[in-house]
């Protein structure tokens, strides 16, 4: 499977920095803002953002949570094997908070829909914004868009985008994988991977 780098390690760092400054531009010192990462892959981005924001602002940053959306997915019983849940850690009420939802790749929008559903179990936020590192536009199945985007990617159906992290994969980078035209049927793509489902 040929792989094409969308963000190399250096560009990755710059993009992360820009996302942080965009957040600060809109929210000042982030008072009343809750950063919520979506399990399983969005939390890696959310953790990194939190650390970076802390460094820039120079103090303990904002409310931070990690949300698992497994039980809110709309494809339960549509896949052969049910996805196993991850840990949710959100020990404060979202009532009246400005929530920034964080995920690594925005693709069909279904994960975010489930995320919004799950969020509402924790109170009524004043507003919800979406931050993603990669936005695969033209692939949306629901009317959902991101407020903050690291990079837009125009990709076709059977390509895959993976975000790799220093902590878990060895290096910070984003890679586009193209499927070989022959051999692979389009259904194998429909299964997706954690990175771009």
């Amino acid at each position, binding site marked *: 499977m040929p792989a094409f780098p969308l963000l190399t390690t250096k560009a990755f760092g710059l993009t992360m920095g820009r996302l942080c400054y965009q957040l600060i531009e809109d929210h000042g010192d982030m008072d009343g803002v809750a950063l919520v990462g979506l*399990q*399983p*892959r969005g*939390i*890696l981005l959310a953790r990194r953002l939190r650390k970076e924001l802390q460094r820039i602002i120079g103090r303990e940053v904002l409310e931070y949570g990690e949300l*698992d959306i*497994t*039980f*809110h*997915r709309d494809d*339960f*019983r*549509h*896949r*052969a*094997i*049910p*996805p*196993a*849940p*991850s*840990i*949710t850690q959100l020990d404060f*009420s979202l009532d009246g908070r400005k929530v920034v939802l964080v995920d690594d790749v925005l693709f069909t929008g279904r994960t975010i829909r489930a995320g919004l*559903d*799950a969020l*509402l*179990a*924790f*109170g009524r936020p004043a507003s919800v914004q979406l931050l993603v590192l990669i936005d695969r536009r033209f692939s949306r199945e629901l009317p959902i868009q991101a407020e903050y985007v690291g990079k837009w990617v125009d990709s076709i159906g059977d390509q895959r985008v993976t975000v790799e992290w220093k902590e*878990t994969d060895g290096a910070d980078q984003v890679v586009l994988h193209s499927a070989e035209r022959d051999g692979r049927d389009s259904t194998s793509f429909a299964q997706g991977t*954690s990175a771009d489902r």
Partner: protein
Amino acid sequence: MSPVPHSEQLSAEHLLGIKGLSVEDIELIFRTADGFKEVLNRPIKKVPSLRDITIANLFFESSTRTRVSFELAEKRLSADVVNFSSSGSSVSKGETLVDTVNNILAMKVDMVVMRHPDPGAAVFLSRHVEARIVNAGDGTHEHPTQALLDAYSIRQKMGKVKGVKVLIVGDVLHSRVALSNIFCLQKLGAEVMLCGPSTLMPRHIESLGVIVEPDMDKALRWCDVANMLRIQLERQGGDGVANFPSLREYAMRYGLDLERYKNIGKEVVIMHPGPINRGVEVTSQVADHANSIILDQVENGVAIRMAVLYLLAARIPRTTV
């Protein structure tokens, strides 16, 4: 822990007993229950997973805890629920079990949670009807969700189940909780000891690999966890012969009061599957002691039952229109 979740499914289509589960199944149920336990601590304790599933709760025998626990679990998964209890139903008119259940299934029910006084009722039903069966207790045979929540509660309190010494006290003969607990704890690597009047100890029970210790004080010194079974007053003396002379004598020999508990000399964890006969199996001071996890068992019961229903529902084929 890897941030990418693994996907797995149960090896069984029904939950008929612990005997039919693998160790991996039990661990999967526990991991899934961890997720639901967190859901149950949210301000809104409900997820939409089972919104297209209908579940019938068939209780041919009285129950409070288990029925409420199952019903809450079902509702918190957004399933549609119908309840049925045998009193005031067609069962008293002589309808057979299979007919009763098939009539209910004709109203498009996907899963059946059943409690029945006859051992093997759940297995029998699973062979004759088209629905997923969850055994909520069949006579003196098995009570799998109780064993799962007991082991889960031990895991939560002790941090593990493997190697933990669990003492089961009392009416082992009539107890489906005891049998399911023995299977479940042994699969997870715990050591099991039984203690109780020899009249309430099934013959050849040692062949299951458990230790039988008639001396209650010795047994208590051995164990880390003591599970005090309920004396099943409704099942005593079925053959016209009492299994023990009096409740008072049972309480003196096998009951746990505060004095006896203090004399053990270590912090034994107290469990009871409920309903408690206060003053018989345990006194109030022991039931409400800091080392008692009786109410944690009840709390964990909902999460465990949600996990079981969720994992079984995942295996129901979707009807495509």
